[in-house]
């Protein structure tokens, strides 16, 4: 039985460790103490947990002001509200101002399931990666989440961390070292490449195992940084494996698949499939049911790979 983890726990543990060593670390929330898993942080550092109430625009501006005062704010809120409600603040106060603020979009993607499309955040990668100066990171597991939080704290400038609440297995070993803009090669192969991030990396790995049983060797890349994108890894995948499937818990308009396709079509065109939410608002259903509904499971990736390879022949 594979153990599954909520990446928010790794986020909170790491933030408390950082806060213990560095008094500049503060957290800013929009009443989202529990959903950002910051209860213990608030107990240990009551003065360094700034709760602005249900007010995302103010929350992001306050983050910029705290950074102006020399602090390192982690601004945490449910991803749909943090990004959608405060997008202009993110653009002007954080990105254009080049403020040293870490935006943490919690419970991203379709994790809120049957709460519906108002609570889904399937546009955030597209919105955030379109903004200059932003670094956009979508960690795949608790190991990568912890490292991404550390790297974000140690990197001057705006960072968006997309942190899910969906249970995921560990896909990285302890020796893994996350670096901004560097794809992680999780499995090598020459027949095609599966590029995923976030909660769907484990599905891509499972799909690769299914393909191996058919004698197909799939390369699997965890593209956790969407901006800046690891262009070299994409070009190598195109040249060395001849076809690419991207997989994201996000709309296919403007997200990971689009970012990869921008590199592929302009430098090394090869057949591609972009798996994600096909530009619709999700019907009612749980998070796991929605991933099946939108054909984002390992079995679906496996099927898409067979079709793509068939189309190539």
């Amino acid at each position, binding site marked *: 039985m594979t153990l599954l983890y909520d990446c928010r726990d790794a986020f909170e543990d790491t933030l408390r460790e950082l806060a213990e060593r560095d008094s500049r670390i*503060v957290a800013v929330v929009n009443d989202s103490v529990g959903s950002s898993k910051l209860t213990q942080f608030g107990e240990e550092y009551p*003065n*360094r947990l*700034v709760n*602005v*109430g249900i*007010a995302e*625009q*103010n929350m*992001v*501006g*306050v*983050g*910029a*002001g*705290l*950074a*102006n*005062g*020399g*602090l390192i*704010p982690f601004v945490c809120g449910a991803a749909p509200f943090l990004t959608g409600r405060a997008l*202009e*603040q993110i653009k*002007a*106060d954080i990105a*254009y*101002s*080049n*403020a040293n603020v870490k935006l943490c979009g919690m419970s991203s993607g379709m994790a809120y399931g049957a709460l519906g499309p108002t609570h889904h955040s399937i546009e955030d990668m597209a919105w955030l990666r379109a903004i200059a100066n932003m670094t956009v990171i979508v960690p795949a597991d608790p190991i990568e989440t912890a490292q991404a939080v550390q790297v974000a704290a140690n990197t001057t400038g705006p960072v968006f961390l997309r942190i899910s609440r969906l249970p995921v297995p560990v896909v990285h070993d302890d020796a893994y070292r996350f670096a901004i803009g560097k794809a992680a090669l999780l499995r090598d192969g020459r027949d095609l490449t599966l590029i995923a991030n976030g909660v769907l990396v484990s599905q891509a790995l499972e799909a690769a195992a299914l393909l191996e049983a058919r004698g197909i060797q799939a390369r699997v890349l965890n593209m956790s940084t969407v901006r800046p994108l690891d262009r070299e890894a994409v070009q190598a995948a195109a040249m060395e494996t001849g076809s690419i499937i991207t997989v994201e818990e996000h709309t296919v308009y403007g997200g990971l698949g689009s970012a990869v396709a921008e590199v592929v079509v302009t430098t090394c065109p090869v057949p591609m499939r972009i798996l994600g939410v096909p530009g619709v608002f999700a019907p009612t259903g749980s998070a796991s049911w929605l991933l099946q509904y939108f054909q984002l499971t390992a079995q679906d990736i496996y099927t898409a790979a067979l079709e793509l390879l068939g189309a190539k022949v």
Partner: protein
Amino acid sequence: MSDRQNVETLSRVATAIRRRDLQMIHNAGLGHIGGDLSAIDILVTLYFSVLRIDPRAPDAPERDRFILSKGHCAGALYTTLAYAGFFPREELDTFVQPLSCLNGHPDRNKVPGVETNTGPLGHGLPVAVGAALAARLTQAPWRVFVLTGDGELQEGSNWEAAMSASHFQLDNLILIVDRNRLQQGDWTERTMHLDPLTDKWRAFGWSVREVNGHDYAGLLETFSAVPFEPGKPNCIIAYTQKGRGVSFMQDQVTWHHRVPTTEELAAALEELKEVAL
């Protein structure tokens, strides 16, 4: 310097800055002269008598912060910063020219003395709340001043920030509202009325004072009284005139972002007596 001498100095600097700003906007063919002229007396009072700043060290951690929320009045800010010594006055000649650091709205990464990039309205006060909180958290003595327009207060983000400033008891935060009563298209009270504005701020938990925004002595006295009440953020409603100092621009909605012609510039400069600085 006596108070009277100080007021005379501020008046002379403000006249020089008004003249320079008018010329700059005329040359550039772009700008927001109406709001610049309503804000200049406030800016000059702050930069030449109130703010604890060193133009040679614009990033000094202990500096007072000033945030121009009405970022479209960048012309007034740039001119004031140049006269205060943050960058050479000749730089003003490049205003909005290709690759100039002086964009139509201020960029902190290019202009010394700018704290945050503004332009879209309703952004300055939330950032000021964060900066005032940072001073509190680090037990630092510096203060945060933020200048908003009045029409700008129609943006809801200001009221989110207003609630949080009083909740956090930020008496190191000083908001100045440039109450020139006009916005881009019409009077504020005809567009979306703001009055009773003083009552609104008091209801949000702020300590409020009203002042003539063109009266240096009154502004100095008001700023020296900060904090007005311990534990409360400070709001100064500064009653001003858009286009102040040029008779045919004063209180005229058309001068929100109209650019003076050569003849209009000459007439304006004639009204603003030349002063030696």
